[in-house]
């Protein structure tokens, strides 16, 4: 299943590049409009990078199942008996196209915001563990709103509150790597716990939501 979604994602490999590019633009844009001197940048970095991750994840959610619903593939998937795997594959593909590239590029962005050593690796780790959670939770919202006209805004409404904790802890991990390095592990473990719960339960919820949306 993953294969088709990856195929779809990679066929327009632009998608990956553009997602990445978009991320960079957003993060670059913020200092423009803040017009702040470079000293305060490191303090802003964790929050801004995480907000950008959150927004670029949500931005691409609306299309997660919408197309499958509109073209009738959702019918096929629901009666295939491999709904769970299919949802997992969708989530994985979503992460590979949004979360992973962001994670990979994050050290560079960190450098641009004057982060160093330990801080860079914390930024990287927090994104690596946290962005899949964003994709998992996002999928539930996407499934619930599939077929609704105002889908994309409702998704944001459903998903944002659920995702805020991820973002807060992700940003907190990075921030504490600047101020109090001892706490970094706690935050990362918290994120990992969230990841495990999300990967196990979110696809089940998503599959159930899809059945309801496809009535």
């Amino acid at each position: 299943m993953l294969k088709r979604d990856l195929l779809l994602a990679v066929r327009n490999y632009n998608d990956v590049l553009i997602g990445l590019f978009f991320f960079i633009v957003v993060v670059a844009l913020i200092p423009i409009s803040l017009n702040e001197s470079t000293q305060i940048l490191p303090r802003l970095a964790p929050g801004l990078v995480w907000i950008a991750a959150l927004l670029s994840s949500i931005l691409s959610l609306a299309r997660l199942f919408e197309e499958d619903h509109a073209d009738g593939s959702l019918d096929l998937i629901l009666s295939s008996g491999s709904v769970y795997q299919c949802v997992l594959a969708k989530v994985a593909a979503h992460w590979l196209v949004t979360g992973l590239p962001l994670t990979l590029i994050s050290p560079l962005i960190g450098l641009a915001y004057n982060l160093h050593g330990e801080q860079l690796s914390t930024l990287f780790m927090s994104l690596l563990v946290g962005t899949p959670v964003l994709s998992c939770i996002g999928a539930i919202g996407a499934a619930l709103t599939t077929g609704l006209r105002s889908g994309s805004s409702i998704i944001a409404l459903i998903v944002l509150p659920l995702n805020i904790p991820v973002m807060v802890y992700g940003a907190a991990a990075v921030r504490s790597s600047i101020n109090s390095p001892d706490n970094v592990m706690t935050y990362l473990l918290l994120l990992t716990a969230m990841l495990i719960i999300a990967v196990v339960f979110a696809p089940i919820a998503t599959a159930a939501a899809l059945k309801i949306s496809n009535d």
Partner: protein
Amino acid sequence: MSFNWFKYSSPASFYGISHSIIKAASGIAIILCIVGLYWGFAKTPDILTDQKEYYRILFIHVPAAWMSMWLYVTLVFWAVTGLIFNTRLSYMMAAATAPTGALFAFLTIWTGAFWGKTSWGVWWDWDPRMTSMLILLFIYIGYIALQNSIADTRRADRASALLALVGVICIPVIYLSINCPDPYQCAALHQQSSLKQIEKNILIAMFIMLFATWAYSFAIITHRLRSIILEREKRTQWAQDIVRDKA
């Protein structure tokens, strides 16, 4: 359609003469580049006020900045020609121009960053001219991305041509962006052109380099155009003949 003869004959005949153009232009580019760099390093003063000798980045920075804008103007020219007369060759010209333009925009910012570090003490600041050059770079990238993401060639050509036309608004902005309405706010680092006060030899070297980049662009764009033509005309007899002759 009245322009058929133009549509169908031009790519083939252009392809025929293009090889010699590339040879000549790249030759000129190499010679001018050597002369220009020689002039720039040997005939100009080592130290310019407080800028030490780092100011010599200007021999790349300024030609690159001018070329990136000039190439955008030509790109738009070809795009508009294509939209009006429906000539395939002009779309190909536009498509061939974009990567070089993007390269120069990038070079401008890249060299500018180094220069800025040595003369202003910062790599980057949101000076309006830099910002608008960054936007120009993004527009080049957007043009290329839009073209690549549309499978149907004809639609890709027309859509990206329109985007180029919309983006042309950037050029006067870059040109005028020294005149910031609020000096306190945007603290423009770039000043009004000081070309007139510049030392004569610096000016000469800079212009030689300008012509070098111009010739380089001409060569590389023509070269890229050749491959685009071959790619797009692969169904035609003459294109197949060429490929067979090469093999």
